[in-house]
């Protein structure tokens, strides 16, 4: 099964091994026809409707604005419905440095996103701390805080790279199963259990 999106041939993608691994996992687990078809339908909807959360801390956020503008026009793919409320967004584009003080806020935003939720680490700061890695007040990559689905390198990544990154996410959504089986949610659960939030009193 070749997973691709419209107007982009399968060979043009850079890292197909990852998707193939997911597909194999999917094949091994097997499923019945009705659930499988239903899954396909739902995944078609999910992968074509990724709404971002308006979340930006620094430079990358400005490129994200450019992404929405006429030249790169992410509306073509249906990503322009940027929601300001995390409850209504599907994925979070972590555009910019996450510093110590922002970490709790960032984690809370992630927790507030409604399932199924995804995270794209956009730019070198979000991936590893980037040029500020040695600083006393910068988180060294967001991978320790939330599970990340796609990494988009660059400082800041060009809008084209961001489009590519979100398209990769869309491919990933396509091969995930919504009903049971090879379920991302379980892996995510594992991650969250190993990174518990304490000290929340409400």
């Amino acid at each position, binding site marked *: 099964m070749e997973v691709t*999106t*419209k*107007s982009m041939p399968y060979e043009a993608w850079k890292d197909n091994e990852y998707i193939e691994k997911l597909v194999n996992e999917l094949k091994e687990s097997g499923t019945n026809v009705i659930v499988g078809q239903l899954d396909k*339908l*739902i995944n*078609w*909807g*999910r992968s*074509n*409707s990724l*709404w971002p959360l308006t979340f930006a801390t620094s430079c990358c956020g400005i490129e994200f604005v450019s992404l929405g*503008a*006429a030249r790169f*026009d992410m*509306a*073509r*793919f*249906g990503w*322009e*419905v940027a*929601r*300001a*409320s995390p*409850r*209504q967004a*599907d994925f979070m584009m972590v555009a910019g440095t996450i510093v110590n003080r922002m970490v709790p806020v960032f984690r809370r935003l992630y927790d*507030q996103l*409604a*399932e*199924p939720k995804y995270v794209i680490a956009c730019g070198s700061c979000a991936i590893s701390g980037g040029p500020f890695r040695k600083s006393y007040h910068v988180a060294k990559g967001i991978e320790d805080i939330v599970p990340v689905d796609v990494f988009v390198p660059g400082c800041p990544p060009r809008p084209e790279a961001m489009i590519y990154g979100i398209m990769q996410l869309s491919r990933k959504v396509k091969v995930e199963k*919504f009903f049971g089986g090879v379920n991302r949610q379980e892996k995510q659960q594992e991650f969250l259990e190993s990174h518990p939030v304490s000290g929340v009193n*409400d």
Partner: protein
Amino acid sequence: MQDLSAITNWIHSFLSSLMPGWLTTTVECVLIGVGLLLVYSLLALFYIYYERKFCAAIQCRIGPNRVGPLGLLQSVADMFKILIKELIELKHIDRFLFALAPYLVIIASMLAFAVLPWGNGLQVIDFNIGIFFLIAVSSIGVLGILLAGWSSNNKFTLIGALRSGAQMVSYELSIGLSVLTMVCLAGTASVGGIIEAQSDMWFIFKGHIPALIAFVIYMIAGTAETNRGPFDLPEAESELTAGYHTEYSGIHFGFFYLAEYLNLFVISGVAALLFFGGWMPFHVPGWESFNHIMDYIPSVVWFLGKAFVLSAVIMWFKWTYPRLRIDMLLALEWKYLLPIGLFNLALMACIIVFNLHF
């Protein structure tokens, strides 16, 4: 002019020949309910797509074009996604009201569909207080918004809800007044009657100056009533995150999202009904052959076409003007629109009494 009531009558007589009267009514209710739901969801999906394409055109963009031909399936995909999104359970909220609010909002816009004249003879119910019913049910919506804001236990939603309460209650007055002005001209509050009265000429021409004023007031107040820009204060993104529906996720948010677009359709549909003859084709007195050609265009197309064009005007507002501030918003209503509306009603009454209309 083809009369669609022939079809509905045929269905009615066919059903009554098969079953007793009470069952016929029940079956018809179910049929109409299903039909309306279908139209409702299709229209909503179309409107979401329409707005996205329209705003893209204004902003020199292309808009959705990847999902389905010309991106037509984009909103369908969005609907699938919203349906399966998690409904987040919140602590410290009024659970009952929180769950009730989106349904109130959606019911309000749905009930309004009952009296919209979809085509010649294609109307769910045509009774003598049709317009009054429409105004009554559309004000249920504000209740849903207030409850949503209140029950979420969040300061942003509360401010959003209070804003929308003030806004919608105020602008309902202007809508009421401009509707009343047109009811004066028609001499009836029945939807069928109002359309019948426009068979020779649409009201916007027939009532000339006061009708034009009423139309402008109606469009401004209607935009405010649907919470759309430049009157989108209750959900002002740059001020209140997402306003009263900040805490809603999944399909509950979907209801608010759909209701916004359907209210837009209802408002423009009613504008089409009151000022542009509803499903009535464009007639010019004296030009018999022209009128005859116009009659060939199906009445449903006329109604929907008018509604879509009027919606486009409202969208145009949204994507052009900056947002008003709450005090400017209330000043506009109470200091300008309301007095002008009252004066306009008196003017219309004079014109009718002295028979100055066309």
